[in-house]
């Protein structure tokens, strides 16, 4: 039954409760870096890395340190959840940024401000908080984080390819850029509602 649970968890996180299109989390990079497919792919990689690690690490800290009766400190520190999660996420993002700047400067330049913004990306914090709320274990949290990131990546890649097409369309001036992007995202969200009830 455990495996069935994982399967449902993954499908749920990718399609049914897609972070971007059903939970509306992480919209900032979703709109910011979806102008071109190749930068979108870079962003997907970064988010996948940060989300998976952040979910796992925060779940570990949550279970072993923060929760009442946790083995390490034996005190209820759950009120520290948000601050600790942010701390961990920020550090991870900083690591990613440093690595990227070193090894792929063009990608770093293309992602620009959106890379540090993963820090305050509600998707990452959201995943951590959701894991904490649902009492997922460390493994399950990491899987959930990864699946969420894949959902994010799916939406982002879809959206980036659509925006490349929109770039060439004769969109009315008042609708150009962000406006039509939001409308497209809205229709995509509508489409993803069709997946309601899957895997669950």
């Amino acid at each position, binding site marked *: 039954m455990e495996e069935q649970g994982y399967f449902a968890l993954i499908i749920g996180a990718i399609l049914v409760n897609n972070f971007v299109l059903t939970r509306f989390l992480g919209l900032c990079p979703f709109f910011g870096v979806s102008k071109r497919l190749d930068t979108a792919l870079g962003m997907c990689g970064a988010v996948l890395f940060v989300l998976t690690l952040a979910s796992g690490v925060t779940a570990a800290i949550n279970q072993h340190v923060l929760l009442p009766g946790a083995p390490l400190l034996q005190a209820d520190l759950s009120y520290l959840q948000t601050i600790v999660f942010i701390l961990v996420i920020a550090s991870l993002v900083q690591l990613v940024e440093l690595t990227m700047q070193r090894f792929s400067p063009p990608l770093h330049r293309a992602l620009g401000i959106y890379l540090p913004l993963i820090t305050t990306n509600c998707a990452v914090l959201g995943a951590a908080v959701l894991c904490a709320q649902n009492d997922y274990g460390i493994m399950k949290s990491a899987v959930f984080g990864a699946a969420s990131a894949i959902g994010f990546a799916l939406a982002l890649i879809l959206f980036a390819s659509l925006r490349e097409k929109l770039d060439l369309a004769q969109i009315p001036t008042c609708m150009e850029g962000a406006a039509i992007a939001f409308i497209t995202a809205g229709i995509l969200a509508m489409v993803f509602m*069709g997946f309601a*009830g899957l895997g669950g």
Partner: protein
Amino acid sequence: MAEETVKLPNPSSLVVSSSPHIHQPQNARRVMLTVVLALLPACVAGVYFFGWPALRVILVTSIACIAFEAFFCKLFKRPNAIGDFSALLTGILLGMNLSAATPWWVCVIGALLAIGLGKQLYGGLGYNIFNPALVGRVGLLIAFPKLMTTWVTPTPGNFLPDAVTTATPLDLASQGTINADYFNYFVGNMGGCIGETSAAALLLGGVVLVYFGYIRWQVPTAYITTLALITWGVHLANPATTPTPLFHILTGGLMIGAIFMATDMVTSPMTKLGAVVFGIGCGVVTCVIRVWGNYPEGVSFAILFMNALVPLINRYTATRPFGLATRNREANA
């Protein structure tokens, strides 16, 4: 002198343009009009089974779509595009995707969603990403879930029926009741949207379109085959509680979706290979939603989802220029 009688062309009336200087007789207008005509049998079937209310729904959506098209063209200062019949086609398709019991104002909202949101905001015909009629329909489905799933019992030949509500075979199947009444399903004597019920009439239209080459036959073929294969597998695993592939093919919006909606030129891939991939994708997503999802019907969602994938499909199924392979091979050797 003989030369004096020779009339030479007047250079000032000459036109210059890039080659080629001749063109085949067909044009977009004619294509659209043919598709509209190909839809007529299914329309007639819909009116036959659901009575005058069905005709009213189709008329309201068609007129509203044309009106909105004219309005948006004016608003965005574009040349009026009613003449290409694409708005009429969208209107008819939208009407055929609604229940005969749909109130007129819902039809108008659907038309606004379809033409405005689905098409004109993207720049009009050719630039829309999603099938406009389906954007209208899915928008309505999410906004008015109750209204949109109120189906009318078919009353063949009775044109002024009392609207008795019923459920579609797919609704029943998702509740566990499977009626294998294939003949009625085939001719269209079942609950459902106006245009989607009569598989026979839709097939007739599809054959016409494939004959003229106005739709890619690869799309409906791949779509229906994929759906049949997956549902067959599911049925084999669980024969008692799941419907047969034939049931899946004949019920719901599969026929109209596969033949008329998924094949929409603008929102389907450019290449033949792309069309196959697109059809298979539609089939898979439809099955996933029908078999495992909450919604009994997944055709609209599936086609819209695959519409969103079209730019990616186009990118990865782009044709290989003649001679490209040779060069690569040589470069490798």
